[in-house]
């Protein structure tokens, strides 16, 4: 096991190098830099050159790549030009806002998807199954930003039930409970949209693995020995059906910490995705690059985690 993890971690190195080269190349294609993007009329050519020298923007691209990549190896992701803070600190500051909605959306979508999957497998080809399937397809096909906008229009503008956007009401007075309740109200819409978006794929997955398990011999045995249907489904079938699903938990990792860019933009949620979109407009390269690499790392670690979880959950699988 330990050997397996070490080997997988070593394999990540060339992948990360490849990713960093691609990401850096794309960002180097952007004409203009942070200095020009700020569009400061008082900026003299001399001052601009001075600033470029300070930020290392005056060097040729390939040199900048090696400096950047070299720093990253030592754990230094650079300093965000816009926030004047190390990239990792900026990420650390905003990532939890993203995490809150992503986490609750994940729990909700797993709960609903498990139920939907189990029931549509149990009653395969019934009306219920067909309705669930259709609903799932709609969820899978949803353009996230459009559905977000529709919900804001209905629930915030027309019905005035929920706030339009943001995370807290400005100038809110009261204790910590009022504060928490305020955040909850603001997060209902983004969480529901995120849930809808991830429900589709998950419940199709659960349905398939449930269908596979239900046809196994041991389920017939369980029924034959007179167990209640509920016990058969939820104890014998469900537990086994969840084994492959555990793998999916690993893949959730980048989603949990990566921020939902479009959602955060629409709901003006101060998460990391929102900050990232701003950094692109500001041409804040160190942050853009650092955060993209951070996302890629999360994906790779998530994949590894998925494989490890599979090995832990199913003793028949041996990781070599």
């Amino acid at each position, binding site marked *: 096991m330990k050997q397996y993890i070490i080997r997988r971690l070593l394999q990540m190195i060339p*992948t990360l190098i490849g990713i960093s080269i691609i990401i850096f190349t*794309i960002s180097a294609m952007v004409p203009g830099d942070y200095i020009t993007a700020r569009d400061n009329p008082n900026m003299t050519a001399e001052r601009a050159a001075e600033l470029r020298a300070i930020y290392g923007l005056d060097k040729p691209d390939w040199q900048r790549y090696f400096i950047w990549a070299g720093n990253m190896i030592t754990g230094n992701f650079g300093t965000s030009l816009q926030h004047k803070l190390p990239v990792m600190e900026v990420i650390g500051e905003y990532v939890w806002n993203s995490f809150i909605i992503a986490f609750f959306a994940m729990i909700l979508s797993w709960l609903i998807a498990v139920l939907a999957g189990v029931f549509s497998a149990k009653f395969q080809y019934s009306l219920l199954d*067909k309705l669930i399937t259709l609903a799932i397809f709609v969820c899978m*096909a949803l*353009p996230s930003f459009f559905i977000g906008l529709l919900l804001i229009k209905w629930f915030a503008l027309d019905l005035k039930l929920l706030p339009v956007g943001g995370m807290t009401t400005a100038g809110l007075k009261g204790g910590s409970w009022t504060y928490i309740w305020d955040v909850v109200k603001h997060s209902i819409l983004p969480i529901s949209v995120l849930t809808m978006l991830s429900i589709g794929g998950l419940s199709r997955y659960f349905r398939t693995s449930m269908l596979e398990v239900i046809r196994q011999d041991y389920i017939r045995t369980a029924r034959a020995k007179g167990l209640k249907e509920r016990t058969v489904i939820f104890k014998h079938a469900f537990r086994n059906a969840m084994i492959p699903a555990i793998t999916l938990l690993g893949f959730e990792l980048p989603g949990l910490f990566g921020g939902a860019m479009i959602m955060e933009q629409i709901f003006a949620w101060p998460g990391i995705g929102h900050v990232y979109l701003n950094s692109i407009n500001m041409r804040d390269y160190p942050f853009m690059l650092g*955060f993209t690499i951070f996302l890629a790392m999360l994906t790779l670690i998530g994949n590894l985690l998925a494989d490890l979880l599979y090995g832990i959950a199913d003793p028949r699988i041996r990781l070599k």
Partner: protein
Amino acid sequence: MSASASPITENTNYRPKAVDSPWRTAWRRFSRNRLAVIGSILLVLMFIICFIGPFLSPYSLLDYNLKFKNLPPNSSYWLGTDYLGRDILLRMMLAGRISLLVGLVATVISVIIGSSLGAFAGFYGKKVDTFIMRLADIFMALPSLPILIIMGVVLSDLQIDPKQRIYYLMVIIGVLNWTTIARLVRGQMLTLREQEFMQATDALGLRDRRKIFKHLLPNTIPVIIVTATLSVAGAILSESALSFLGVGVIPPQPSWGNMISAANNLIDFSKRPWLWIPPGMCILITTVAINLIGDGLRDAMDPKMKK
């Protein structure tokens, strides 16, 4: 279907079904799947409306008529007009052409790249395989939306003409999506190349290229078709998200995504829903239809693939 031509003998149930080609069987299974048929009808309708509809419209996109700006839906402007007095219905149909085309072409690009790289990896194995699959790993770990957005910004900064920009978008979306197909095709290749008909091609002394493109790849077509269908929906969603953020298809070229970005303006968003709800519904209908078709195809062509 020669059954109707020859007299059926009474005491056998034999019908010459066995001669059905796999395509015909697949078609029969597909046409029995009600959701898939509904999806196909919706998609065909969407294509007809978007590609033929504009010819029937009495308006043109150059009709800037500020007297008729921001009209709600009425009898002469079925879906209302925008801030320049342009007919929303016409704009939406033209946007549909672009969005559908971007989705289709991007998918064709990713199919071409994905299936040939996957085929090479599976056929040659060893170093070629390792190299291509490592490349696939890299692309799989690239966060696609951030990369797409950065690329969109690059296009804006290079000040590419809005008309040409569409082609760049197709290529970018296509290139970022090749890995799924490559992996599937490679997997199929690994089993296919061990089968007997490949020994026959060896015996015939066929060249590698002929083996791959004439004998192996055609066998992976069902897998490719199913995955490609579903990825058209993905490509349309990517394009619309980018256009919504202002880094995809940009005005004056209409696309469903950038029409929805009218909602970024608070007054348009709350008081003039006809500006952004219809294009959103178009995206929704199209992607749902494509997903239904893709799922129907999967059941019809290869029940084993069903997930």
